[in-house]
């Protein structure tokens, strides 16, 4: 497994990786099920993002602590047990904090278990790195996921219900663009964001190339 010597240093990049360069949603396209399903309002998106972040960080810690004990034959099973434990915990905590949020998120909290971002982090990062580094990386990934969910949730709520975090933005006359809070709206907004980020990337490459020409 460790032909490549792992770098133990914790850099800013360990944290930022998940937010920008390897954003789980916009770059890696992982965990699309909650991304499309619960982003019909900003508050749901935020709650889902924070719940996932909690599970990411805590399961990364445990996986990383036990990384040398877990035989590779049963590693996936062990990771899933660990992830499921923290999902159950977060499920109880949300219920204890707010019944309304719990009702809104419904089954999607339990479905964090099968969110491939978390298993992906356990396999790719936590099982090879020290606890602190794994947690920092997981926190970045979680934050990246939360931000991505918010990107979708904010746009969909504004267009689809004319409000933000439940506060109405427009007057009585506003005719909501209902399709935005329906499942197709999730795809439309996700597509829009992907287009936007791709455009940014292309523009950056072009300006870099242009600079190369002038300096060359």
């Amino acid at each position, binding site marked *: 497994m460790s032909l490549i010597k792992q770098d133990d240093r914790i850099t800013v990049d360990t944290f930022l990786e998940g937010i920008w360069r390897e954003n789980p949603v916009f770059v890696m396209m992982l965990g699309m099920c909650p991304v499309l399903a619960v982003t019909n309002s900003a508050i749901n998106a935020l709650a889902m993002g924070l719940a996932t972040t909690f599970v990411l960080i805590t399961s990364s810690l445990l996986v990383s602590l036990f990384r040398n004990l877990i*035989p590779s034959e049963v590693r996936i099973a062990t990771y899933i047990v660990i992830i*499921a*434990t923290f999902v159950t*915990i977060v499920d109880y905590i949300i219920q204890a*904090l707010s019944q309304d949020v719990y009702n809104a998120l419904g089954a999607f909290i339990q479905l964090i278990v099968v969110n491939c971002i978390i298993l992906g982090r356990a396999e790719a990062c936590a099982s090879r790195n020290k606890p602190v580094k794994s947690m920092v990386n997981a926190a970045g990934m979680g934050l990246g996921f939360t931000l991505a969910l918010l990107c979708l949730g904010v746009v969909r709520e504004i267009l689809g219900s004319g409000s933000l975090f439940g506060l109405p933005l427009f007057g009585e006359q506003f005719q909501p663009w*209902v399709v935005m*809070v*329906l499942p197709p709206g999730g795809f439309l907004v996700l597509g829009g964001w992907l287009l936007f980020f791709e455009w940014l990337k292309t523009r950056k490459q072009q300006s870099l190339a242009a600079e190369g020409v002038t300096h060359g």
Partner: protein
Amino acid sequence: MSSKTSTAMIATLGFVTALSGFLIVTVYQATKPAIEENKRLSIQKTVLEVIKGATADKHFIINDKGELLEAVPGMKGINIYAGYDARGKLMGVAVEGSAQGYSGSVDTIYAYTPACECITGIKVIKQTETPGLGDKVITDKNFVANFDKLEAKVNAAGDALANAIVAVKHGAKHNPWEIDAISGATISSKAIAKGLNGSAQQVLPKVVPLLPTIESKFTSEGAKP
């Protein structure tokens, strides 16, 4: 060699699952009171919102034999939530109703006011209807106005409603027991009507004779808002 790895596998999985069980039980125990309190508060909030003028509530259960009991956790029967004003006058009772809607069950709590023998308020507590269409049953002002005063008289024999509560096509409401459906959300409107009717037909004939008993059970101490 292979027996050694098997032992390691069993030991690891055993250890991890034991730890996981321990963590879950700890959190379950720690959050249980808060979760139960949340559920109770959310029901209480709904009851006080749906029964107009109520400032205190009390939870009763009608068991299989038709007896009225003060609710204790784990008791089976029909849930009845009584709403009193500050002086202990019974303002109404809230009852649960539910029926199949367009995409899953639509659960409601409605308030029955003895003074007018009618339903005077309704609150949808759980629904999975199409956003923007079916969920208008919560937001559409004209539809909600159906429940300002929806007749729910118990018949002379005292075993059912005098007139069944039904949803009629938008604009076709002529009788006080009819619900004017939302055009474009007929199935969801009908689900509300069906839930109300199914519950009211069954529960109200049992509750109405018990109303004086319910009123007499008011205690300022046991029914804080």
